[in-house]
Structures are given as C-alpha cells and as structure tokens.
C-alpha cells in the first residue's frame, strides 16, 4: 500500500473515532416545553421523566457539556452555600449518597424546582427548565453510586473532595460508622 493511501485511510479511521458529543446551546421550544412535564408522585418524591427525556437519551445524566453547565449553576445559584462542595452544611451532603428525598433525577429535579419544607428554596422562578435539568444531573453525579462515563469539567477552585465521577457514595455505605442513621 502506498504511504499516501495509508495515511488517507488512517485519517478516515481517526475521523470516525471522533464522534463529538453534541452540545445544544438552546433547546427547541417544543422540546423545552415537553421536558417541563415531569410527572412526580403526589408527595414530590420519585416519578417518571417525560418521554422526550428518554428519547433524547437522558442527556442530563450522560452529557459532559450539560454536567459542566450544571456545575457552574451549582455555584452561581449558591447551592454550595448550604450543601458545600457536596459535603453538606445546613443542607444535606450529596457525596454520601444518602438522599432525603430519593436518589432518582426526578426527585432531585422536583427538589430544585419546588423547594423542600426544611429550608430548601424553590428555584422555579430563577432557573429555566433546562437549567434545572442540568443542575439536577450534576447534583446526582456528586452522589452517584456507580462510576459514570461522562464527567463535568474539573474544579477551577479549591480541591476539597474526590472528583464527581469517582463514584464515592458506594464506598461510604460499605464501610463506616458514620453517618449514623437519623432518628
């Protein structure tokens, strides 16, 4: 084979390998509207995401761009003020995988959108539906039970805890005396 052909073949192969993750900077309005239709259980815990979410391939749990956007929103909207960098403060930790209102993304979405009675404010008038999804996806990643293929951007500030895609929650449950269960 001629060197020219070989390199052409290699180039073609390389290009095939680069399947770029899709970034959609603005959702189409009908999609955005349908993502709003989250059907949670009457107590606001758990439920079903809209069909659009599944059809899109769960973009807020598996797309690195969305996770990184969620990570920025996490600081911009002062989530770190109550939940620290996942370790908790007046709000519960996410890192330990212990979810007061359930670990699924719908529970997290509803917590952010509608707030919770013990101090969690509602963000429905402060964030768009897409932003709430991005934030919920990121928050779920902090306390994920298994390693994920997609990760948000690195911290650009103080490194204070294991990285988000290290799936630390599992190990926390496996070993320790702490945290003791609530009353």
């Amino acid at each position: 084979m001629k060197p020219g052909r070989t390199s052409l073949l290699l180039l073609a192969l390389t290009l095939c390998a680069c399947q770029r993750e899709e970034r959609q900077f603005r959702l189409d309005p009908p999609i955005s509207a349908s993502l709003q239709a989250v059907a949670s259980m009457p107590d606001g815990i758990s439920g079903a995401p809209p069909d659009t979410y599944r059809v899109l391939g769960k973009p807020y749990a598996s797309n690195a761009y969305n996770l990184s956007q969620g990570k920025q929103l996490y600081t911009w909207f002062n989530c770190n003020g109550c939940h620290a960098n996942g370790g908790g403060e007046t709000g519960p930790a996410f890192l330990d995988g212990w979810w007061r209102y359930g670990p699924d993304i719908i529970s997290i979405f509803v917590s952010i959108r509608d707030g919770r009675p013990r101090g969690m404010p509602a963000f429905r008038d402060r964030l768009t539906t897409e932003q709430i999804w991005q934030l919920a996806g990121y928050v779920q990643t902090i306390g994920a039970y298994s390693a994920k293929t997609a990760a948000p951007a690195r911290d650009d500030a103080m490194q204070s805890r294991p990285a988000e895609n290290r799936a630390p929650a599992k190990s926390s449950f496996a070993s320790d005396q702490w945290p003791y269960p609530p009353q």
Partner: protein
Amino acid sequence: MREAQQITATRYSELDQIDRDNVSHLRLVFSFRSGQRGAQGAAPLVVGSRLYLLTSFPHTLFALDLTSPQPKVSWQFTPQSDPIAAGLACCDRTAHGPVFDKGRLYFSTLDGHVIAVDSDTGRMLWDVAVANPHQGETLTSPPTVSGGRLVIGNAGDNFGTRGWVVALDAATGRELWRHYTTGPDRDVGITQGFAPFEASDRGPDLGSRSWPAGAWQHGGGSVSGPSLYDSELELLLHNTGPPAPWNPEQRAGANRWTSGVFARDPQTGAARWFTPLHPHNVYSWVNGTANIAVDRPWSGVNRKLLLHADADGLLYVLDRGSGEILAADPLLSPEDARQASQDDPSQTPRSGVQVRDICPAWVGAIGGDPALAASTGILFVPITRLCMDIEARPASYIEGTPFMGANVRVHAEPGKERGGLVGWDLGRRKAAWRIDERFPVASDALATAGELVFYGTLDGVIKAVDAGTGKLLWQWRTATGIMGQPTTYRGPDGRQYVAVVAGATGPYGLASQYWIDRRDATAALGLAQSIADLPAPTDPSGTLYVFGLP
C-alpha cells in the same frame, strides 16, 4: 431565681455548698431526655420549684416540677413552627432562652418569633414574628429584659441579611423600635447624641458611604449574640456581626457598622457610641460572644468596664460610658498562638488564590461565653484554636439563599490542641492558668462561689476545675457533646445542684451532624475535617443532666 439572673450577666453564682473539697462527690440526681435532636445553648432556668427547659428547633418548652425526686413535667408548650428555619441555622450559636420576668417566660424561636407564656400554666400570652426566615433571618439569642422591654437582634450574615436589633413591649409584644447595623443614619439610629470615642467614626451616613453603592442592603452585621442591659448607665450594649458576603473584594470599604460594639439608648434605640473592632473584617470572624459588665479599679480609678472576648483572640476591656478601648490583651501568649493580620496583603483572601493558615479561623478564638468571678477578678474564657485556608469566590445575592463567596477549609493549628480554658487575671492582665483540651471548648463557662469553674467538652465530659489553679477536680461523661451553658441552682429542698444540657448546637454541632460528609473539606463551613476524630454521640437527643451532692 436570683442565681439564674446573675448567671445571665456574668455566669457567676453565689452558691457555695458545692466547693473544692466536696465536688468530687457530685453524682447524677436525675436526667431528662428531651427526645429532640440536639440542644439549644442556653441554660435551663430554675424559678421557685420549677425548672424550665427549651429544646432545640422545633422548640418545646418544658416545665419540670423539682419537688419530687424524679421530676415530672408540669406542662409543656410547643409553638407552631416554620420548618424552613431548620435549613438556615448555620453558624451561630443558638441560645433561645427562656428568660423570666414578673411571672412570665419569654423566649425566641429559630424561625423568628418572640413568645411570652405564663410561667404557672404554660398558656401563651403573645407570639410576635420579628424576623423573616424566608429571607434567611433567624433568631439565635434569648431576648434581653430591660425595663418593660424585650430586646433581641437577628442572625443570618451568611444569607446576606441586614443586621438589626428590635425592642418589643414586654406586655403586648408590640414593636417599639428597630435599628439596623448598616445603611443611612436614620436606619442605624444615629442622631445628635451619637458620640463614638474615635473621631474617625463620626460623619454622616457612614453606614452606607463606607460600602460600594447599595452593598449595605445585604451587608450582614447581624446581632446574633445576646444584648446586655446596663440599668445604671441606661445603656443597651450589643455586638454587631461580620459583613456580608465573605468575599472582601465585593465590599471595599470599612463596612460600617459591622464587627464592633454598639451602645444604644434602651428607650429609643438611638446609638450612643460604637467601637469598631474589625473594620472590613476580611476573615468573617464571628462576633456573637456575650459581653460582661463589671465595675472595678482600672489604673487606680474605679471604672465601669465592658469585657469583650473577641474572635481575634484578644480580650478587649472597654469603658462602658464612652466605648474607649482601655486594653486589648492576647488571651494566649503571642509566641504560643499565631495571629493573622488583616493589614497584611499576603494574608487577605482574594479571588483565585488560596490564602493558607489564617489563625484564628472564622469561628474565632473564643469557644463559649466566658464567666467572671468578680471577687477575685478572674475571667474564665473557653478557647478554640483552629486555622483556615480561604479562597474568595464570586457571590451573587439571591433572596433566601446563602450569600457567601468563599471556599473555606478549617484545620487545627499544627502541633497544638484545638481548645482549652484560660483563667485570665484581670488585675495582672495575664493568664493565671490554662487548660488544654483536645477539641474546641464550645460550652460556656460557669463560675461559683465554691471557687469552682464548670465547663463541658465536645466529646461529652462535664468538668469542674479549681478556679484558682485550673486543677481538674471532678468529671462526668454524658451521652453527647456539651455545647451549651452549665448552670447551678438551689432546689426546693435548699440544696445546690449543677445542671447542664448535652446535645449538638452551633457550628460544631452542625459539623457533627449525620448529614455531613467529612470527605469534603469545605463541608459545614470547613469545620467537618477539623473535628473529624470526634466520636459519634451515643444518643443524639438533647438531654438534661442534674448533679448534686449525696
């Protein structure tokens, strides 16, 4: 009752049945488990044959009948509560009372109410909302009774609230006046009669002009600690908390009137003087420790003094009449304790840089409230020795969410114990003795005429030490950490008892909660790893322990 009132001022009791010789015989007389997670920091109150105990939020007020050997609940009262406040109580020590005056009990609630109840029956007389938890405002101190008025201030610096102090009519709960820590003179209560000791503190509207435009509206400066009523000088003295947000780049200027001491006219709330302690306060050092008023000779002249143990580790002695700082002495010797300087640019928190080993950390060098034995002039100061790494971050104000702008990691001072108790000799202006403790001492001190000092530790040991030497004379282990006020009272049988409520409260209480994951160094405002070796309590409920001689 008399004992309790004296304790609110100096945490000193004239009771002397329990003394250095017999304290080692102290034993548990009874305990009362509140069933409520944690505790609030204020001491239980004994009036006549009843003991009044207020639990942590959501509060219940219990009245225990002390006449029987195993006290029974005479009545209990649970006010309606707004659960949102549970997510706001953050970094201030919470001590809601109760306080007793003329047959009534008054207490504040974390969710912003002040409530009066009949002490005989527990019937509610009035309930007034003074703070708005939906803006991040909470109440963390007990109201101060001053001549028919109740005075209380808000907490919530970390939510960008604006500090205020309010006076209520004790009879009805009607609001008499309210003045703010920041803003134009009209809001602060600065009028013709305002005479700060330093001339540089005089000038129109410094409370708004010493801030970037409009920043005073979310400028913190809360009044989270108790006020002190001086009936002789007719003064109301209170501290103001650190400015908000933590990121100092967003609040260039002196940030008046945060991080200092105010004296006000109790009748109108008008400011008499203000003494700044940490203008601009780049380390967000808290300012919630109770002050002590005492009259004693100073440089040969009898003076009315105000003792202020400050977060920076210094004991400030102020003149109560003028606000003049007469002395500022380091409670730990300077060669023994590191001291950050906010004038050093390399130690100033800024964006994108981690400034390391700032001592003391934001929690300050003072643990609980000090106690004073006026006869010997020894002040007993609970000590915290922690340092922090801090990095400024941009903060945006969103109502009801934290307004912080900092990543903080707190750690022990290398090679040092994290807490202690200092016996400070006011006359000689030096420490008479010091006890080191493994953990920060978050409990208040109690001094008695039996020449004893009582205090508790985070790992749940109540201790009695010799007031003259600091020698440990008695200790007893409780089921959870002690972070509140030990107290002593004369029971209906005429005998002296010592009481303490064990249970998590305040910043260390927060850092030891089950929902904190200590692998995040910034968890619980950076405190999570600083006490990571604290064992989990065997019982998370707040529990009252009462001790007596056999």
